[in-house]
């Protein structure tokens, strides 16, 4: 319940000056304010609308400075290990999307200034699709993709 209050507080006070006061007082860093869970982005049914909801844009620029490590064939769609590494400077966040999942956005990692451009996790994939890594740096979105074949889907069932 405490958490619910915190969430309401964060959402409700963005318009009011409470947050900026808190930021000024050093209670909240801007990063923490941004961290309110983006419901719309996670419920979006397409890659474009998920990115719109998450970052306000889906203008992706292909980049060879991002690499995705994921299996070519995932036997079990419920557990697909995915690692994203990028050498882009000033990375703000790394998001991982599975293009053909019912809701493509799987995760978005907000990185601190001292954090390296690397994240690794395990995702669920409903069917064979492309895994897209979106790196936000300097207000722009860079992306790369990798096709992962799924033999047994990991959503529903």
């Amino acid at each position: 319940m405490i958490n619910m209050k915190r969430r309401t507080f964060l959402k409700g006070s963005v318009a009011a000056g409470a947050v900026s006061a808190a930021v000024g007082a050093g209670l909240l860093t801007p990063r923490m304010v941004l961290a309110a869970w983006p419901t719309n982005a996670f419920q979006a049914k397409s890659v474009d609308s998920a990115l719109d909801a998450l970052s306000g844009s889906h203008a992706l620029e292909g980049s060879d400075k991002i690499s995705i490590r994921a299996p070519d064939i995932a036997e079990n769609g419920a557990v697909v290990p995915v690692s994203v590494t990028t050498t882009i400077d000033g990375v703000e966040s790394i998001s991982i999307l599975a293009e053909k999942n019912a809701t493509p956005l799987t995760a978005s990692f907000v990185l601190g200034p001292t954090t390296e451009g690397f994240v690794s996790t395990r995702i669920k994939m409903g069917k064979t699709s492309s895994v897209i890594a979106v790196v936000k740096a300097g207000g722009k979105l860079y992306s790369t993709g990798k096709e992962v074949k799924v033999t047994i889907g990991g959503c529903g069932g």
Partner: protein
Amino acid sequence: MASIKIRAKVSDGVTTVKALVKHPMETGQRKDKKTGKLIPAHFIQEVTCEHNGKAVMTALWGPAISKNPYLSFKFKGASKGDTLKLSWVDNRGEKDSVETQVS
């Protein structure tokens, strides 16, 4: 509720954090085989890792993260013996956190 296993190791100034959380990560799309009813969604929404009280990484997760999620990332600026705090909160407001020393 010790739901988190975490390891943080520093080498050449870069700390690698690996964490494993015990959580069902229910999508809300699966049906209970016996009753045919949908199993309500239950998944971690936010994982935060703090070093000296500063967030080094905040992960926003949807239900498409695998059951018993694994997470790894790297950051600079920590030294041996520093305290790292990792905490998560799920869509039902349940939460847990753990503190560990960088080794």
